[in-house]
């Protein structure tokens, strides 16, 4: 389904058209749910928190000043709700940890994986992402899937922009290392 700009629905809701809010929920529910799930690790709890989050956002919609994107505001509320539910500490700067180095360059990996069929590519990236930590998966979701800028992610998570950038770079390296490892194992199995 093709959705309109968030502000269109917000204006309608603020003018009394409650039904327009259903469109906003439908548009953002998967991302909000994914963000919360990556923090809580329980589908049941994530559904409950996501539902409460959307109700809370509806009730405070008139206070949304539109200084940031609606999605950034929404994801920040979702992130904080999930953090307070789990009483987990917010993301902090983590030192660089070692990842497996191998003989393949990023270009080798891109070419090797690129030659595979789409289903196999999807299976590999799912496996590689499953090996990342929850925090790393959350950053990947916010950056690649929700298409947030570094500043947006900084606003949502409370990390500094430079920290977000460093962590994304590190995650990218980790994913490349994971994919290279998988490619190497596949080649060894063939020989």
């Amino acid at each position, binding site marked *: 389904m093709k959705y309109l700009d968030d502000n269109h629905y917000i204006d309608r809701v603020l003018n009394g058209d*409650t*039904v327009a*809010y*259903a469109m906003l*929920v*439908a548009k953002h*529910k*998967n*991302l909000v*749910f*994914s963000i919360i*799930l990556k923090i809580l690790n329980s*589908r049941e709890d*994530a*559904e409950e928190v*996501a*539902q409460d989050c*959307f*109700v809370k956002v*509806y*009730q*405070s919609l008139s206070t949304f000043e539109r200084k940031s994107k609606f999605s950034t505001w929404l994801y920040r509320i979702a992130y904080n709700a999930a953090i307070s539910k789990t009483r987990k500490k917010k993301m902090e700067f983590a030192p660089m940890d070692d990842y497996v180095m191998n003989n393949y360059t*990023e270009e080798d*990996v*891109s070419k090797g*994986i*690129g030659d595979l069929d*789409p289903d196999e*590519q*999807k299976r590999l*990236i*799912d496996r590689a*992402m499953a090996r990342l930590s929850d925090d790393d998966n959350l950053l*990947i*979701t916010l*950056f*690649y*899937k929700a298409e947030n*800028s*570094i*500043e947006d992610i900084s606003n949502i998570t409370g990390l500094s*922009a*430079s920290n977000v*950038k460093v962590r*994304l*770079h590190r995650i*990218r390296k980790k*994913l*490349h290392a994971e994919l290279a490892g998988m490619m190497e194992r596949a080649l060894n199995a063939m020989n």
Partner: protein
Amino acid sequence: MINKDDLTDDDFLRDLIRRSPLDSPSGGFTERVMAQIAASPEVSPVKKPFYLYLKAVVPYLLLAMILFTVIATSDLPLFRWLPGRQYLTENLLPYIQSIFGMFKSAFSSKAVSWALLVSFSAGALYLVDKLFTRRGAV
């Protein structure tokens, strides 16, 4: 301003990651949210309680009273154009004394003094509670 383009070229990973589907809540999620919204009471804007305005004014009021007392009782050259201590003792003091006289006559009766004492104490305690006890948001 930092943006996504500042990161090294990662089109390959981005395309790959976007193919991986997002987690989604169970069916009927949107309907459940809308039902919860319909069932929850309308949230009216929270009105700032009056005691908070009063609490904010107290320091300024005290400062004004202290300044007034200092200026009214001083004979400093700077404040010569003001009535000064002489004015206070000759004109204001009789009024203050008459007010205290009223209190004195009121307290001459035991019943009245007990009633006043109890009501003043209760009133003072209530005000202190209102002024300095932080109430939770409704």
